[in-house]
């Protein structure tokens, strides 16, 4: 019988090529119509060392990691203990191991998983130019029933430049692996692709965020490298150039954010991307963006904190600093994408909102979204682009009021180059004229105005993703949405009912909208990946949650799995 999801890990040290094999597996699966998700795990070494490519494949879209690994193919076991906790196994799992690499480490063998020996290295050595990762890939492909056409397309694409010999060696390695696996009879053949007919993309969350920014109209980026945000910059560098924009590698995060403010003051939508430590450095200048009403988007790809924490692993623990980290009363926008594909929508929306409301927008992505790669249906085009309310009728007769106290709170802005609109944007408190002022009335007016433009704005239906029905609701955000969504689907498949509310707009808060979304709910499960239940406390501070509230919150670095949320959900039913 065919299964509807398979989770596979390819494990090995640097030279084994596990990441390449994982990538090829995902690409090949995509080529034949399946969906998938690939995340990677590696030790703290810069290059080489232990690593694992973790791939989940399914005929339908994949929301998060599997509960456990169905299949592990190990090229070697070097230091695997360091991330054995990231490789959950059960007695139903299968470990394929090369006997020449020694026994299966006790931490993994203890799961009771079935162990199959395959002389991977020897098989590869028999082929001129043969590589272990292709042998492993062949075994996996055979096990999940991947049609040969998939790998043909991928090998041709990946190795086309290297010539015929390389292609032949890869094919031979693949076939050798597939032949070995033909007799295993593991029952892990994946069901046929369901084919939604949509164009499908193979994209990482960080790439999707970069694309969303471009689609939103960003044409300037200044940033300082930091894991796991760097890929946004690496993707943007050539693509901003192609679209006539500019990327600057700044000297630090203080420069990154203030360069963006300068560019944005010049009328060019701007973005910076960083992770927790960089966000901390930026907070003063984000306040400058609030006070001077200069739009800017900051993508924070969260990682384990505090301090330099666990740079390569995910967490959702920058919520507090993103929402509360600015000094003074500094209303600003905070949004969180709910999936890899949604990184595109949310980044594009963030640009639109920042520009429309003339204020900074922090987008809270995280490592598990940013650095994972998924096969998804091409996201629908969203209508959101940068559009700043520009000042009109600047005749120079009346003094232009940069910070005019309008009913919407949004003041029409003049951009350098517009005659008659000359003014000084200021981080000091100011009067409507933009002149510095320490008067109580001006402070009150400007504080009111800056808050009003956020509270009076209609954010439409995008403030949250709401699915399902029933008296039980799962309230979550960001990358926790994937496993929460899968847990709700499992409950529904078993005849249960639950609502899912994944909040995309974290600030400003939307109490009336959440109240409506939770109408009739008697039990709430809050799901998040923090140690201190930051999201739960945030909800408590700003919303009335109905009925009894249960919290599922735990820190990284291990990803939240659907099984955990499902169990928490069952305890509420």
């Amino acid at each position, binding site marked *: 019988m065919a299964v509807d999801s398979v989770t596979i890990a390819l494990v090995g040290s640097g030279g084994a090529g596990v990441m390449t094999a994982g990538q090829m597996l995902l*690409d090949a699966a*995509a*080529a034949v119509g399946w969906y998938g998700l690939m995340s990677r795990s590696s030790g703290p070494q810069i290059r080489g060392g232990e690593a694992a490519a973790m791939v989940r494949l399914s005929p339908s879209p994949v929301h998060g990691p599997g509960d456990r690994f169905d299949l592990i193919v190990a090229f070697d076991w070097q230091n695997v203990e360091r991330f054995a906790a990231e490789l959950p196994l059960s007695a139903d799992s299968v470990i394929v191991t090369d006997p020449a690499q020694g026994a299966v480490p006790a931490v993994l063998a203890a799961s009771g998983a079935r162990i199959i020996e395959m002389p991977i290295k020897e098989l590869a050595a028999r082929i001129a130019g043969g590589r272990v990762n292709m042998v492993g890939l062949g075994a996996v492909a055979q096990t999940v029933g991947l049609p040969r056409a998939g790998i043909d397309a991928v090998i041709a694409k990946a190795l086309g430049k290297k010539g015929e010999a390389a292609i032949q060696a890869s094919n031979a390695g693949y076939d050798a692996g597939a032949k070995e696996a033909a007799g295993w009879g593991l029952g892990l053949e994946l069901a046929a692709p369901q084919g939604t007919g949509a164009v*499908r*993309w*193979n*994209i990482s969350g960080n790439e999707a965020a970069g*694309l969303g920014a*471009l*689609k939103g109209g960003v*044409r*300037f980026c*200044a940033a300082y490298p930091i894991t796991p945000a760097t890929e946004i910059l690496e993707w943007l560098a050539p*693509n901003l*150039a*192609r*679209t*006539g*924009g*500019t*990327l*600057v590698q*700044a*000297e*630090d995060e*203080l*420069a990154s954010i*203030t*360069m*963006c*403010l*300068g*560019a*944005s*003051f*010049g009328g060019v939508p*701007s973005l910076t991307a960083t992770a927790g430590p960089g966000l901390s450095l930026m907070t003063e*200048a984000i*306040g*400058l963006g609030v006070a*001077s009403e200069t739009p800017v988007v900051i993508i924070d790809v969260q990682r384990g904190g505090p301090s330099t924490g666990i740079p390569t692993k995910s967490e959702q623990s920058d919520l507090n600093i993103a929402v509360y980290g600015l000094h003074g009363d500094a209303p600003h926008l905070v949004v969180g994408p709910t999936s890899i594909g949604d990184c595109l929508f949310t980044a594009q929306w963030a640009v639109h909102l920042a520009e429309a409301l003339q204020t900074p927008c922090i987008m809270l992505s995280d490592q598990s979204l940013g650095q994972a790669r998924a*096969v998804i249906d*091409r996201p629908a085009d969203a209508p959101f682009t940068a559009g700043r309310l520009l000042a009109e009728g600047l005749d*120079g007769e009346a*003094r232009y009021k940069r910070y005019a106290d309008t009913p919407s709170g949004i003041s029409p802005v*003049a951009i*350098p*180059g517009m*005659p*008659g*609109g*000359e*003014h*000084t*944007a*200021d*981080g*000091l408190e100011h009067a409507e004229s933009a*002149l*510095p002022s320490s008067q109580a009335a001006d402070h009150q007016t400007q504080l009111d105005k800056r808050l009003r433009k956020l509270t009076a704005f209609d954010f439409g239906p995008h403030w949250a993703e709401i699915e399902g029905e029933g008296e039980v609701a799962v309230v979550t955000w960001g990358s926790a949405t994937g496993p929460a969504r899968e847990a709700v689907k499992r409950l529904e498949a078993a005849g249960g009912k639950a609502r899912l509310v994944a909040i995309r707009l974290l600030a400003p808060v939307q109490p009336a909208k959440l109240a409506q979304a939770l109408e009739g709910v008697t039990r709430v499960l809050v799901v998040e990946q923090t140690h201190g239940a930051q999201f739960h406390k945030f909800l408590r501070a700003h919303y009335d949650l109905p009925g009894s509230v249960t919290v599922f919150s735990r820190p990284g670095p291990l990803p939240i799995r659907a099984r955990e949320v499902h169990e928490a959900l069952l305890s509420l039913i």
Partner: protein
Amino acid sequence: MDTHLKDGAAPVPGDYKSDVKPIWCPGCGDYSVLAGITRAMAAMGLERHNTAVVSGIGCSSRIPAYTSVYGFHGVHGRALAVASGLKLARPDLTVLVFGGDGDGFSIGGNHFLHACRRNVDLTYIVMDNQVYGMTKGQASPTTEADWCESKLTPEGPGVNPIQPVALALSCGANFVARGYSGDPNEVARLIVEGVRHPGFAVIHVLSPCVTFRPEQRSWKGAVHPYGREPTDDPAQAMRAVLEDDGFGLGIFLAGNRRPFHPAVAATAGIAEIEEGFAV
């Protein structure tokens, strides 16, 4: 009043002044620097709407409000970064940057280093009074080691002051000059030269703080023309600076490094970029 330049009429410094009254102490050197700035703007006939001034925080950083061009008054130390972003995004604008010695060399020191080596086409006027004026008289990075008037460092800072001009040269600034606020015409001339010179121009202006360093009134007698023609050789300029007593005025370096500017012509549309993701 904020009137427009009249068509045809030659601009005058008053066209670039706002009607805002400066908060500075009577006698502050920054008044004359402001006069030099508006004279320079008039001399160049800058279009107000295509000119932007950027500053950090400090007494000297108040200048944007006192001009009638576009301005950005930011946070302490980040003026050069704001200005770099603005100029890179809007190469069509003339961008000047203002600040004090604390703003530029202490909290903003890292940005100064990198602005010099990055060489974006900006003109940076740093008003050096060897003290933190706005926070009421603490030692700055250019204060002498034995200056004992600050409550924070009653025994004196005890560390050597940095030399802004030498620092700028060693970090690769493309145009380096020194002026004195008591001579606003010379300040204006240096600014004009700095703006016209492509790349990052640093104009170090000695501008006394009469409130916290009243003894700086004696600078009037100490300054002197530096007395040599500008060179385009940084090593030669550095030798001259090291021989100088810190009060020599003039242009030390007018170098010929190429300004930093990434290409801006679009070669692809978003749809084309998106195609790269299709499986």
